[in-house]
């Protein structure tokens, strides 16, 4: 199981906060809320492509939106592997933080 990069971590945490499954726009809003920084859709999709290739996220089309001419949206869902990679990364964060504290470094 690999360690996530910071960006992947942010996306996954946003996804987890949205109950593990969401469309693109809410994820983007969540990320902005989390980090306070703007993220472009292009960047988001590129990162999503990586996550999908690694098997941490799956994408599927939702049913069409219930308006006339409404189209289906992509819904991203975090997988089991995604969750365990996230947990592992979190654990690593804890480990590093703990060790830094033990050695009395200012963090």
């Amino acid at each position, binding site marked *: 199981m690999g360690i996530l990069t910071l960006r992947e971590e942010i996306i996954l945490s946003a996804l987890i906060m949205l109950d593990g499954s969401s469309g*693109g*726009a809410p994820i983007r*809003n969540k990320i902005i809320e989390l980090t306070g920084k703007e993220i*472009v*859709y*292009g*960047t988001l*999709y590129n990162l999503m492509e990586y996550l999908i290739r690694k098997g941490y996220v799956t994408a599927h089309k939702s049913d069409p939106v219930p308006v006339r001419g409404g*189209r289906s949206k992509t819904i991203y869902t975090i997988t089991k592997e995604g969750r365990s990679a996230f947990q592992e990364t979190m654990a690593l964060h804890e480990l590093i933080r703990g060790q830094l504290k033990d050695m009395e470094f200012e963090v």
Partner: protein
Amino acid sequence: MSSRKTCHLPSLARFILKRMSLYNERHSIIENFEETYQEIRKKEGILKANIWCWMSVIQSLFGYIGLSVLWRFVMIKNYLKTAFRILKKHKGHSVINILGLTVGMAAFILISLYVQYELSYDDFHENTDRLYRIINNFPSSYYQGNSYGFSTPPPLSATLMDEFSEVEYAVKLTQRRILFNHENRSNFEIGLFTDKHFFDVFSFKLLRGDKNIVLADPYSVVINEKLARKYFGSENPIGKIMKVHTGGVNYDLRVTGIIDETPDNSHIRFDFLIPFETQFPVEKRARQLNNWMNWSHRTYVLLKDRTLKKTFEPKLSLIINKYYPERYSAEGSKKLHLLIQPIKNIHLGSDINLKEIIYIYVFSFTAFFILLIACMNYMNLTTSYALKRAREIGIRKVSGAQRKQLFWQFMGETLLISIISLVIAIGLVCLFLPSFNTFIERNIDIGIIRNRMLCTGVFAAIITGFLSGIYPSLFLSSFSPNEIFSGTSRSSIKRNKLRAVFVILQFCITSVLITSSLAIFKQIDYIKNIDVGYNRDQIVVIPIQDNSIRKNIAAFKNELLNNRNVVDLTLSSQYPAYVSNGAGWKGKDEAGGDIEFHYNVLYTDYNFIDVYKLELAEGRNFKEKITTDSSISIIINQEFAKAAGWKNPLGKNMPDWLGKNAKVIGVIKNFNFRSLHSSIKPLIMVYDQSRMTNYVSIRINSENIPGILSHFERTYKEFNPQYPFTYYFLDDVFNSMYRKETKMGWLAISFSIVSILIACIGMFGLALFNVERRTKEVGIRKVLGASVLNIVLQLVKEFIIWVIIAYAFAVPIAYYSMSKWLQNFAYKMNTSIWMLIILSAGIALFIALLSVSYQTIKAATANPVDSLRYE
């Protein structure tokens, strides 16, 4: 969500977003954009929303481009991997493919380097586009055709500069071979007498000295680095005095400047520059510089602007009108025109005669054809191997590859192969360039042309890749997986008419090349062995360059004769193969009509006819004892008698300029006193002791030639210690006149070999494929009792038919082009072109059979058990 209908994303943004197909399919980009857009619009107004929209679109676009490049790259990696695997798997096939393309490309690069070099002549002048040479033109006369020359009179350049506002500078120059003495060294050097504006007009590099003053003083000389090293070694030559001997006068010239050596691609070549007036003795200078009748110098003009050419050229007739009024108003062959020729056109003579530029066209076409043959070869082999890759294509298609993707995959493979071939080809070019240089007598330097070579190479590789890739790629990507797996596609791959067309075309081009090279060789051989009417074997010609020998000519002759290996010797103003002095004839024929023609004049000693073993048709030879024979007895050739319309030429009167009462005393049989490119012209021979002393022709025995030559040299030095001794063998001179044709012949042969090689490689590959495909068929035939010969014929039949069809196409092309080429010669070989065509057909058929026979015979003699067992 009701506001959705009233307010959308800007339609252009929507359009751009739609183009990002990957985002669209996988991530519903438009929907997401729409959602966020609405949110922002609600919260912060339409302006903010639009700004956000555009910023995001642009930034996402970069992200999208990055992503798609990444994915393509992943796919390209896969394609490359496949390509290398295929190369490795079918080693024989790959080697054949790469070899064919390599040879084709190497030939293409080599030829295009040569062509580019030839076209680069005189490019280095800064003002090359407005630099012109003045040429003169006498409209056609009876024997000479339309004649252009580039000699002009000395006052022309000054007149042009003074009287024509279009001219920035004009400069006259004349090339001379003169004797330099410095301390103990004395040598002939070739250089120019020229004006002080030389460096304003041309961009030759002056290494030392000021370009405005180096040629200002009449007694100055500018030498190049080679001469500086030769005469002064490591000393500084500036300010040193060099002794120069010219026109019978010795001068002391001061070295005022050093020039770089002339670039190889300059049509003006020189080792030194001397002010123009110095070539005339002091007392004659003023008169010579103003002599409009002395047409023996070249004039170049630098116009102020290139566009002035049109207005300037017609104005030159003003000069003719002013200084040659009778020529201006004259009609016919006496009329004179002055024209200007761009300096870029001089080397190839593209607007005076087409001879040189034609060779350039021929070479370019050949280069192109060789590359084409190589491409067709590749197409052939690749499509015939399609069967082996059918499964791969099927699998790819089943797993979702589009035709477009497959097409680019195969194009990529072709490009890869052509790049591999390019690398090898460039290696080959580097290897062969030195010998190619000696062959074409040019100096193409690999260091200088490296970039150009790479450009040409990459160009060739891309062209080859595309040309040879498109068809196989279309063909391979068109297979339907259904057919492939059910096995029905095999027949469509097998029966590919286009493949036959390619082989036929290849062999057609090859046949034309073989026929042409055979014809060229036959013709050159014919010319070398033609009976020119005189005996040129074992004749040594020594030029007499100085008056000190002329004064003691009788003693000089005696001394030369004083060797038992010298048979005889004679004197003449010029020698056969290079007789060019002439005059015009005007007279009446027997019916009283006007006759006008040009004839050549040769001043000879009394025994010229004996030494050269010419034959008299009528009359008698000159006799030394008869005093009237000197200068007023004339011998003419048969052609002269014919041109003048004389049935009984003996005793006819000749023009007065030959002496009062000049009469014809004999007629010699026609002999070729010039190159065999031209037919025999009218000639008169005059026994004139004062004008015959330019060349000594000595007939020798072939024993101890070094001994004879050293005897000549000793004698020469004894009479003229100042001048170096030079000599030539007449047959060498003769052969050197046909050097260009000989080279053409060799070049044609080499190109034919290259194209034959490529075509053979192709044939070999096809045969290999054919035999592999038909192994079972051969086995069954053998089991049923077919003989080896039977099977070989069966397998080879197809190829033979192809070669025969190719010949049917090649024959008219070869016939036409060779008849055209032969028109250059007044004497044409007696072998007919048809014979050569049949001969070359034989050669082509033989080669074709040879290249397919190995595979075929191997297949035919194989044990049928082996070929049938594996089922």
